C-alpha cells in the first residue's frame, strides 16, 4: 500500500505548486553553479541585445529618412514623384521579397511569436536584414506603414542571431527573440514601458521574474542608445492635456465607441482582402505592392499626401489642432484605405504607426465635432487625439494594457488616465463584440499557423476543482479510531475507499478490504494511524485549476478537497471520473458555442 510521489521532506504534499522542471539539468554542484551563471549571463546578454537593437533601430530610422528624401524628395513631393515613388518601389520590394527575403513580408509581430512558439527562437538574420531594407524602402516611398513592427522583428532577429552564435540552451533561445523584440519596439517607440508590456501581453503571454528582467533590461538599454543618437523627445510634441470635469468622460466614451467601430472596419478590411489577394496567381504578387503604391500615390495627388508613410508629422499637427474636423475625418478614412492596401499587398511594414495615425485623426475629429455641439467641453484637440491613439491601439491591436500605458508614456501626463481608460474600454469591448478574433490571430491563421492567442488565453474560462468535485457522502474516519470501530462505520457506506482525517493535519485513505484483512490478522484494536502509510493523500482546494487535480487522480482513487482556512474541513471529494467527466462536459459546451 505504498503511495508514490506527492510528498516533500516534511511529508506534506504540495500539489498546488508546479512540478519541478523535468528538463535534463546539471547533476552536480558545479553544473548548478553553471546554471546560475547562465541566467546571470543571459541578463548581461539582454543588455547587449538592447544596445545592438537600439543601434539597428537608429540605422533603420536613418534609412527610412534617406529613402524618403531620395524617393519622394526633400520637400513637398511633385505629382510625378507621388505616383512613381510608391509604385516603382513597390515593384522592387516585391522582387526582393519574392526572391531574396521571403520571410520579410508582413509586420513582424507574428513572425516573432512564431519564433517563440514554433522555431525555438530562431529568426533568420537574413529576415532581419530583409525587413530592414524592404520596410525602409516601403515606408520611405510613401506606403502607409510604420517602422515599429519591423523594428521589433529586427531586434528579434539580431537577438536570435546572437543567441545562436553563443549556443544558448533551447529555453533561452526561445526567450531571446522576445527580448530582442522588446528592445526593437522600445527603441522605435521611444517608450520602454509600452514595449515591455506589448511583448509580455501579446508575444510571450506570461509574466515571470526571469523574462521580465531580461525584457526590461533590453528595452531600457535600447532606448538609452536610441536617445543618445536621436534625442529624448517624444514622437510627438505633446500640448498640455488633461481632464478638467469628470462629466466630460461621456465625450471620451463616445470617442471610444467611434474608435471601436473604426477598428472593426480597419481589421475587417485587412482580414477580408488579404486572403483574396493571396489567392490570386503567383505572378500577381510581383505587382500587388506596386498597384497598392500607385493607388496610395493617387490619394496623395488628389490632395491627401498626409496619409503616405508613417505620418508622425501629421499626427503631431493633428494633436496641435491644425486640421478641421472634416479633413481629420477624411484623413482617418483614407489612412484606413491606404494601410489596408499596403498591408494586404504583402509590402513589409508595420501597423502600429498607421493605427496611431487613424486614432489621432479620429480622436481629434470626434473632439472637434463634440466641441461644435457642446462648446463648454474643455478637452483640447491634443487630448482627444492622444486618447484616440490609445483607442485604436486597444480596438485594433487588442492590447488593452499596452494601449493605456502607451498614451501615458507618450503624453507624460497621468491626468489623462481616466479618459484613456474609459475610451479604451469601450473600443476594446466593441471591437471584441464585432470582431471576435484579434487581428494578429486572424493573420496567423490565414498563414496556416496556430500560434497561441494571448487574448484567448486571457479570456479562457479555467476549469477549477470546485467545478468537478462531489459532495463527500462517504464517512470520514479519524486516525485515532480503532480498526474494529472503523469497519463498523465503514460498512454503512457503499464506497469501498474511505478517507481518514489525520491529526494534527493531513488526509489518508484506506479500503474496507484492507481494514477487514487487518482485523482478521488480529489487529482490530489498533488505531488507524498505526496501520496507515506515512505518505498522505495530496489535498486540493476548490479554487485550484482542475489541471492540478489531473496530476493526482491517476494515483489516488479519491482525493479530498479541503478548505484553505481549515485543512481538516472537507469541502468535497474528487476522483478521476469526476475530472474526466467535467472536461468532457466542457468540450461539449465549447462545441455548442462554436
Amino acid at each position, binding site marked *: 500500500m505504498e503511495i508514490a510521489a506527492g510528498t516533500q521532506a516534511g511529508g506534506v504534499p504540495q500539489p498546488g505548486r508546479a512540478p519541478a522542471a523535468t528538463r535534463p539539468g546539471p547533476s552536480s554542484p558545479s553544473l548548478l553553479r553553471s546554471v546560475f*551563471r547562465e541566467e546571470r*549571463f543571459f541578463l548581461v546578454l539582454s543588455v*547587449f541585445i538592447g544596445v545592438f537593437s537600439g543601434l539597428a533601430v537608429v540605422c533603420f530610422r536613418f534609412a527610412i529618412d*534617406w529613402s524618403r528624401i531620395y524617393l519622394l524628395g526633400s*520637400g513637398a513631393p511633385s505629382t510625378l514623384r507621388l505616383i512613381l515613388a510608391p509604385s516603382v518601389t513597390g515593384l522592387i520590394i516585391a522582387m526582393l521579397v519574392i526572391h531574396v527575403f521571403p520571410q520579410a513580408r508582413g509586420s513582424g509581430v507574428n513572425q516573432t511569436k512564431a519564433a517563440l512558439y514554433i522555431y525555438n527562437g530562431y*529568426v533568420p538574420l537574413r529576415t532581419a536584414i530583409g525587413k530592414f531594407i524592404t520596410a525602409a524602402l516601403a515606408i520611405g516611398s510613401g506606403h502607409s506603414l510604420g517602422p515599429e513592427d519591423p523594428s521589433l522583428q529586427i531586434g528579434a532577429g539580431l537577438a536570435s542571431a546572437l543567441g545562436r552564435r553563443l549556443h544558448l*540552451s533551447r529555453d533561452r533561445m526561445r526567450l531571446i527573440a522576445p527580448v530582442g523584440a522588446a528592445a526593437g519596439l522600445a527603441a522605435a517607440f521611444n517608450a520602454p514601458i509600452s514595449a515591455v508590456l506589448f511583448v509580455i501581453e501579446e508575444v510571450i503571454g506570461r509574466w515571470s521574474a526571469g523574462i521580465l528582467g531580461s525584457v526590461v533590461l533590453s528595452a531600457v538599454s535600447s532606448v538609452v542608445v536610441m536617445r543618445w*543618437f536621436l534625442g529624448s523627445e517624444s514622437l510627438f510634441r505633446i500640448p498640455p492635456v488633461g481632464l478638467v470635469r469628470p462629466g466630460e468622460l461621456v465625450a471620451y466614451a463616445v470617442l471610444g465607441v467611434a474608435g471601436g467601430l473604426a477598428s472593426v472596419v480597419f481589421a475587417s478590411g485587412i482580414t477580408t482582402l488579404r486572403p483574396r489577394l493571396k489567392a490570386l496567381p503567383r505572378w500577381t504578387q510581383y505587382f500587388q505592392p506596386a498597384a497598392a503604391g500607385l493607388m496610395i500615390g493617387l490619394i496623395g495627388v488628389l490632395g491627401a499626401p498626409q496619409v503616405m508613410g508613417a505620418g508622425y508629422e501629421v499626427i503631431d499637427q493633428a494633436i496641435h489642432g491644425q486640421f478641421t474636423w472634416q479633413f481629420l475625418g477624411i484623413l482617418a478614412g483614407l489612412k484606413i484605405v491606404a494601410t489596408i492596401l499596403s498591408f494586404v499587398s504583402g509590402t513589409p511594414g508595420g501597423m502600429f504607426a498607421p493605427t496611431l495615425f487613424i486614432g489621432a485623426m479620429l480622436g481629434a475629429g470626434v473632439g472637434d465635432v463634440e466641441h461644435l455641439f457642446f462648446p463648454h467641453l474643455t478637452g483640447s484637440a491634443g487630448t482627444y487625439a492622444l486618447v484616440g491613439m490609445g483607442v485604436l491601439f486597444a480596438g485594433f491591436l487588442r492590447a488593452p494594457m499596452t494601449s493605456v500605458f502607451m498614451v501615458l508614456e507618450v503624453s507624460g501626463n497621468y491626468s489623462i488616465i481616466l479618459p484613456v481608460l474609459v475610451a479604451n474600454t469601450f473600443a476594446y469591448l466593441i471591437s471584441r463584440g464585432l470582431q471576435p478574433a484579434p487581428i494578429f490571430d486572424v493573420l496567423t491563421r490565414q498563414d496556416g499557423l496556430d500560434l497561441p492567442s494571448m487574448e484567448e488565453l486571457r479570456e479562457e474560462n479555467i476549469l477549477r476543482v470546485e467545478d468537478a468535485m462531489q459532495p463527500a457522502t462517504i464517512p470520514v474516519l479519524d486516525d485515532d479510531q480503532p480498526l474494529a470501530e472503523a469497519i463498523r462505520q465503514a460498512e454503512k457506506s457503499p464506497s469501498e475507499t474511505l478517507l481518514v482525517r489525520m491529526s494534527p493535519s493531513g488526509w489518508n485513505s484506506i479500503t474496507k478490504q484492507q481494514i477487514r484483512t487487518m482485523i482478521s490478522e488480529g489487529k482490530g484494536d489498533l488505531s488507524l494511524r498505526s496501520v496507515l502509510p506515512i505518505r498522505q493523500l495530496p489535498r486540493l482546494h476548490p479554487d485550484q485549476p482542475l489541471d492540478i487535480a489531473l496530476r493526482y487522480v491517476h494515483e489516488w482513487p479519491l482525493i479530498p478537497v479541503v478548505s484553505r482556512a481549515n485543512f481538516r474541513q472537507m469541502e468535497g471529494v474528487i476522483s478521476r471520473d469526476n475530472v474526466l467527466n467535467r472536461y468532457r462536459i466542457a468540450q461539449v459546451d465549447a462545441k455548442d458555442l462554436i
Partner: protein
Amino acid sequence: MPPLSPEIQPGEEVTATAGEDRILRWYATREPLVLVVLSLMAVLFFLAVTGLSRIYYRQQDSLGERWYSRGVADLNAGHADQAVGAFHAALRYSRDNYGYQLSLAQALAALNRTDEAQAYLLNLWERKPEDGTVTLELGRIFVKKREKDQALRYYHNAIYATWADHPDNRRRAARLELVDFLLQENDQTQAQAELIALAANLPPDSPLHLRIGGLFMQVQDYEHALQQYREALTIDRRSSAAMAGAGHAAFVRGNYESAQGYLAGAVAGDPKDTESAELLHTAGLVLQMDPFRRQISASKRSRIVIEAFETAGARLKSCSPRPESGATVPTTADQETLDSRWNDLKPRITELGLRRDPDLVDSAMDLVFAIERQTRAECGGPAGADLALLLISKLHGGN
C-alpha cells in the same frame, strides 16, 4: 505564405539534452571572453552608427536651412502659401527648431490660418514664455480673432518680454500696435493710458512724436498731443506736420493765439494744407471777434460787439425754424424769443449806447452766444464768423 523559418537547421540549435552540460561548461570557462568580444562589437557598432549619424544630421541641417531660406524668401516676396510649404519642409529636418516654427507660424498667420498659427505659437510660448516675438505674434493672432482679453494679455506680455535686438524699439512698437487695437475697439481710456506710458520714454525722434501726438489727438488728449508736437518741433523746427498738429491741438484746447502761430507756420510750410489754412482763418476770426480780449480800446470793443450782433442776427434770420424736425428748443433760447430779444436790443446796440452802458456789452454778447448755440442746434454747424462766435462762447464758459 511560406513557413516563417524554413531555413532552421536541426543541428543549428542547441538542444537541452546531451549538449547541455557541454554548453554550461563552455559558459563557465569562456564567459569573460564572450563579454569582452560583445563589448568590442558594441563599441565598433556604436562608432559606426556615430559616423552615420553625423552624416545624417549634417544632411538634415543642410536641408532644413535650405528650405528655411526658401521659405523666408517666399514670405518676403509675399508668397505666404509657398512659404508655409517650405517651412513645413524645413521643420521635417529640424522638428523643434524654434526659428523655423516661428516663421511657419508667421506665414500661417499671413494666410489667416490663425488656428494653426496659434497652435505653433502657443507651443513656442510654452517653451519660451519670455520671448517677445512669439508673445507679440500671439497678441496679433488674438486681435485677428477679436479676442480682446487674450490680445491685451499677450500684448502686455510682449511689452515686458525679452527681445533679442533693439528691445526698446520692439516694446514701443508692440505698445503702438496695442494702442491701434484699442482704438479699433473704441477703448479710448485704455488707449490713452497706454499712450501716456509710451510717451514717458520716447527717444528724440520727430516722426515718432508726430505719430504719438496724432494718437493723443484720436483719444482727445489734446494737452499730451500738443506736448508731443512741441517735442517734435524741438527736434525739427521746420516740420510743417508738427506745426499743423500743434496748431490743431492748441486750437481744440482754445489756445487760439498759439494755434494761429503754429497754423501759420504749417500753412507757410505746406500751402496745400487746406485744413490748417481753414483752422488758421477761424482762429484769426476768433481772435478778431472776441470783445473780451484784453488791451483793446472801448470803441474797438463796441465795433466788435456790433459786428457780432449783426452776424448773429443774420444767422438767426437765415436759420428758419423747422417744426417738423421735432427739435426741442430751450425756453430761454426759443427761436421766437431770441428773435424778439434781438429786435428789442437792436436799437440800443450802437457805439454810443455801448459806451454809455458797459453792461450792454455782456447782454449783447450773451444774446449773440445764445443765438449761435440755438442755430447750431437747429441748422447744423456754423462756418466763418458764426463758427468764430460759437468758439468764443465756449472760450468764455459757454457750452
